[in-house]
């Protein structure tokens, strides 16, 4: 610090500015540090290792959510410490690491680099990697995915979530219906006797949801069936309840359920029911909601996998599976479908790495069934497509092009500089 600066201690603004500048520079230094990059990549390596181990126990969905879409995770190493305890290591989640990496990349690779032609390739490559990270962020927050399962000859215009539920209130409206939904994530407090009230200002009733279970089976109460769960008696005197089941790591194997009580605003009459979110697709798309009457209108409540309407209708024309010779292990399987979009029809063959893309929807061939065992042979089969709606679907491809272009420019510049310097070195003796 200069003598002049030290002679003006009475000017707090100047001191603050200098101090702030120093702090800012230190922050930028840390954020742009190559060491930070290395540390973050190492941390991500450890996280990937931990997540891979955890996937066997927790399943793909939970591992992805808890390890890679979180800021913080407790890694249970399952190393016994005695007394039934295991070694648990707190670790930074994938979301936080990638966020930090993005900042590190932007500050260190883009902001701190001089924007000169000499650094053009490096800047471009960093920009491409940043775009890749942004694509991941957009996908995580603004995309959704589900599935469509169809037998040959069957068609649908909806896709269903693999594992997320929604409570749908339906009102019969002529041959169709009017529906309102609330996602199951909003009902998470309805555990045990705790209730969540769902309503809307224009509804003549409210709905109390309770005893939410992530995995359960409906049961009928009988003399030999004991339960601590509430038993709901229907009009003919039969009692029904939900029996809790172990939550499976493969989340799509779980079937959620809950109890609902409809309370009319006028008269306070109550209608109670047990709801079970069993998805019967592709065997049947028909839903059978709990039905009740209020003010002469027919209403229904349905706990179902989240449904999305497709912007077109899809029919499975043919499904084909080929096995490895002498085995019953499928070598590949593919589907021929017809897309009905208004008056237009389009035939598409969907197979590995060749999805159907239409109106922001991407259909990947992902599975087939029924698969009672690994030795299932013969038709009829149904085909399963994973359907993804992702605004950043193509961004990774563009990001790869940008990174490729950046590295190409960078290495060409390096090559040209190397060739020029070699030429100069070779030319020096002649000049002297």
């Amino acid at each position, binding site marked *: 610090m200069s003598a002049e600066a030290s002679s003006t201690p009475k000017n707090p603004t100047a001191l603050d500015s200098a101090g702030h500048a120093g702090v800012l520079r230190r922050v930028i230094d840390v954020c742009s540090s190559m060491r930070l990059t290395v540390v973050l990549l190492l941390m991500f390596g450890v996280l990937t290792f931990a997540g891979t181990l955890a996937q066997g126990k927790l399943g793909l969905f939970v591992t992805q959510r808890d390890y890679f879409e979180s800021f913080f995770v407790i890694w249970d190493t399952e190393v016994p410490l005695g007394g039934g305890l295991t070694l648990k290591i707190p670790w930074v989640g994938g979301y936080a690491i990638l966020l930090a990496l993005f900042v590190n990349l932007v500050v260190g690779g883009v902001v701190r680099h001089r924007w000169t032609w000499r650094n053009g390739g490096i800047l471009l490559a960093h920009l491409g990697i940043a775009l890749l990270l942004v694509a991941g962020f957009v996908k995580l927050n603004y995309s959704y995915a589900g599935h469509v399962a169809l037998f040959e000859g069957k068609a649908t215009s909806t896709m269903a979530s693999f594992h997320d539920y929604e409570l749908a209130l339906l009102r019969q409206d002529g041959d169709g219906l009017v529906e309102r939904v609330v996602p199951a994530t909003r009902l998470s407090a309805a555990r045990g006797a705790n209730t969540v009230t769902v309503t809307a200002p224009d509804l003549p009733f409210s709905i109390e949801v309770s005893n939410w279970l992530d995995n359960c089976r409906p049961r009928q109460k009988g003399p030999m069936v004991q339960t601590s769960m509430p038993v709901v008696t229907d009009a003919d005197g039969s009692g029904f309840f939900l029996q809790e089941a172990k939550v499976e790591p493969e989340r799509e194997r779980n079937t959620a359920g809950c109890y609902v009580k409809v309370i009319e605003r006028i008269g306070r009459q109550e209608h109670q029911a*047990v709801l*079970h979110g069993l998805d019967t697709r592709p065997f049947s798309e028909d839903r059978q909601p709990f039905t009740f009457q209020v003010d002469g209108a027919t209403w229904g409540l349905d706990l179902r996998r989240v449904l999305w309407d497709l912007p077109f209708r899809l029919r499975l024309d043919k499904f084909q599976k080929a096995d490895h010779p002498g085995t019953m292990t499928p070598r590949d399987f593919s589907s021929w479908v017809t897309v009905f979009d208004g008056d237009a029809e389009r035939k598409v063959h969907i197979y590995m790495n060749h999805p159907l893309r239409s109106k922001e929807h991407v259909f990947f061939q992902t599975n087939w069934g029924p698969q009672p065992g690994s030795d299932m042979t013969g038709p009829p089969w149904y085909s399963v497509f994973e359907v993804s709606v992702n605004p950043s679907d193509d961004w990774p491809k563009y990001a790869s092009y940008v990174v490729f272009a950046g590295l190409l420019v960078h290495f060409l510049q390096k090559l040209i500089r190397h060739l020029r310097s070699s030429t100069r070195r070779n030319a020096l003796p002649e000049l002297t």
Partner: protein
Amino acid sequence: MTIPGLRILLPILFLAGCGADNAVDFGPPRSATRDQRPTTWNRPTRERLGLPDMRGASAEPKQAGQPRWTGDTPVGWEELPAQPQRFRDAVWRVAGNEETECYLSAGVGGGVSMNMGRWYTQQFGVQDVPAVEALPVVELAGHPGRLVELSGTYMQKPGQAVLLAFFAEGDQVTSLKFTGPEAVVQGNRDKFLQLARSLRRASAGPNPEAPPIQPGQPMPPNHPGMNTEHAAPTSASAPAPFAADVPAGWTAKPGSRPLHHTFGTDGEVYVSQLGGGLRPTLDIWRGEVGLAAMSDAEWNALPKVPMLGGEATLLDVSGDFHSMSGKQIAGARLLVVTLLEGGTITFAKLVGPAAEVEAQRAPFLKFCASLRRAP
């Protein structure tokens, strides 16, 4: 941000974080066509939840005009409507006394020991359940049965008593149970035993809702031929509790078993129901092809297939088949798809020579997937 600002903001954030979100709104209404949301309204709860009738294939017929349980109502008692959905196939009480109830439950699964455990321990808190042979013998609906007499606190009401006569057929227990204040129950003991002796199945009566037969009206299509030898009912004409899409090549087999069919040289398939635990039952079927009981690993590895709207368990085993009814098939393969719901096992069983079963496996699984309760 200034310190006072933080002082205000932090408590708000804290309260917002602690508050339970116990009231939520539905999203906006949106219309959907029937194609988009195929919906069947007003289904009974059991069908809506995809549950089988717990009373099984041999359940008490509930429709008018079919046999039902009846008995000689004792003097001073009154008969009430049956409630088969609550396992009350016939109901009485001491006239005008709402504290008493006497009902018949026919063919409840679980076996004698489990039911006795339920009556003694769960309902009356009696831990020492006597041996069934120690109970007095009584007559119940023409069967030799046993009598249980208990008193104490029942259904959280002290001073109660129960008289319970029962007999067992295999795993199925039929019981007549009389509950009420101890003094009333003891005072009606002879009437209860008299009612137990008189229980019987009533013959089928006319359906009061059926229209009268008109002159010249043709016989229904499945009516036996007139003035001809009475043919045994076929599986196609017998009232079956289930229906399914039967694969081509299967031949309906006359008999009482639902959806009983044959295929190939010696293959057969049928659908039925029984009580009991799933794993022991599967082990019994394994025993039919000479296999020992399953290990835990084998049990956990059993694949699941769709049936009746649920996840059914598939048993696929091979060996020399010796059924309990005496049927034998060398080099057989046995497929059983089982669904346990509410203590009842609904199963579809296919057995035959291994090579023929291999060809029938996929059609059989499709058959199971299409299985549904008959309306």
